[in-house]
């Protein structure tokens, strides 16, 4: 009998673990003020700030939130891997329900946090930070004692952000194809093997 494996779950688990590893070193979103004068590198797993090319520094409360995200995603990734190998076991569905939402929540939480930050900064300080691309921003003169200060602000998503979306998509795929996986049909449906050869005419 063919062993049931949720291939989407396997790919999702591997991608999630890979995402954690790369996100420790490469941010999801980078915003730079001026030419290296001030830089924010952020993701749900690692956020740091750099001023004038100095050593990056973190804010302790954000560091704690990042650590919580790392642990949560790691638990989700490991349990997704475990689930994908035993989807038909009675506890498989519980493992899946626990793990498939984690990358999705991370992406949604991250995007909502970015949008909230941009809206709050715009409302409170009148500073328009771009979410992608470059924009010249002028600081309100109430903040600069009458001096006019304008800065080129550039912002971009880095490739781990797209990897996170891929991981979230694979997790949702794992959930959608759970029923097929436990029926043992997924392998032949989505990873087809070569069709049987027709009988020889002799």
């Amino acid at each position, binding site marked *: 009998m063919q062993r049931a494996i949720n291939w989407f779950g396997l790919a999702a688990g591997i991608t999630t673990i890979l995402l954690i590893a790369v996100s420790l070193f490469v941010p999801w979103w980078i915003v730079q003020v001026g030419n290296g004068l001030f830089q924010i590198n952020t993701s749900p797993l690692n956020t740091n700030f750099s001023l004038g090319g100095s050593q990056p520094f973190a804010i*302790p409360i954000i560091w*704690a939130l990042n650590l*919580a995200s790392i642990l949560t995603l790691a638990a989700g990734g490991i349990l997704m891997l475990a689930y994908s190998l035993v989807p038909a076991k009675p506890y498989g569905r519980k493992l899946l329900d626990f793990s498939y939402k984690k990358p999705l929540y991370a992406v949604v939480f991250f995007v909502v946090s970015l949008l909230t930050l941009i809206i709050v900064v715009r409302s409170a300080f009148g500073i328009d930070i771009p979410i992608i691309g470059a924009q010249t921003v002028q600081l309100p003169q109430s903040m600069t004692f*009458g001096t*006019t*200060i304008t800065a*080129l602000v550039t912002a971009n998503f880095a490739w781990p952000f797209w990897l996170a979306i891929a991981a979230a998509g694979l997790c949702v795929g794992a959930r959608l194809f759970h029923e097929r996986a436990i029926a043992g049909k997924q392998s032949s449906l989505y990873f087809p093997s070569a069709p049987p050869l027709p009988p020889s005419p002799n």
Partner: protein
Amino acid sequence: MNLGIVLTLISVLCTAGPLAGAVIVYQNNPVGLVVPPEVNDLVGNGFGNMSNFGMPQLVSAVYDASQHTETLVLNFTNPVNMTFALKSAYAEVRCHEDQVFLANATLTSPVSIGPCETVNVTVVCAWTPQTESYFQTAHAGASTLNVDLTQLTINVNDVTVTLSQPLEISNIPIQV
């Protein structure tokens, strides 16, 4: 034990554990949770007090009669612990007495200013024939003049700063 309870416990521990740890570590310094020492250092080293960024001081002014240019050397001290790249500078030079426009002043070449370093910055003003005739009529016989640098605009690391107050420079030689 029920798997559901174990998974819930994992969720709670993963989320609350780091936050509780941070709160315990910073229980004697709650402000430190949101303001890291690096930010305190920056505030203490200059960014917290804009007056630490002193106005440039005139070191020398040389008039070149053949080129009709005035070369001003100003010195500037960087009070903070980071490197600035002064890419460009521009100002209108006006007579301090009657605010008549005399020339534009521009930075000759980009300057890098290291942490807590003092550097000389050279700017050049090109006097026009109108400027020189103004010197001969309004300041006949004078060998020096007090000028204001107005609309002083500098580009530091692609951040452009335009000063609202003019920068007065005294005793610029104007031998015409």
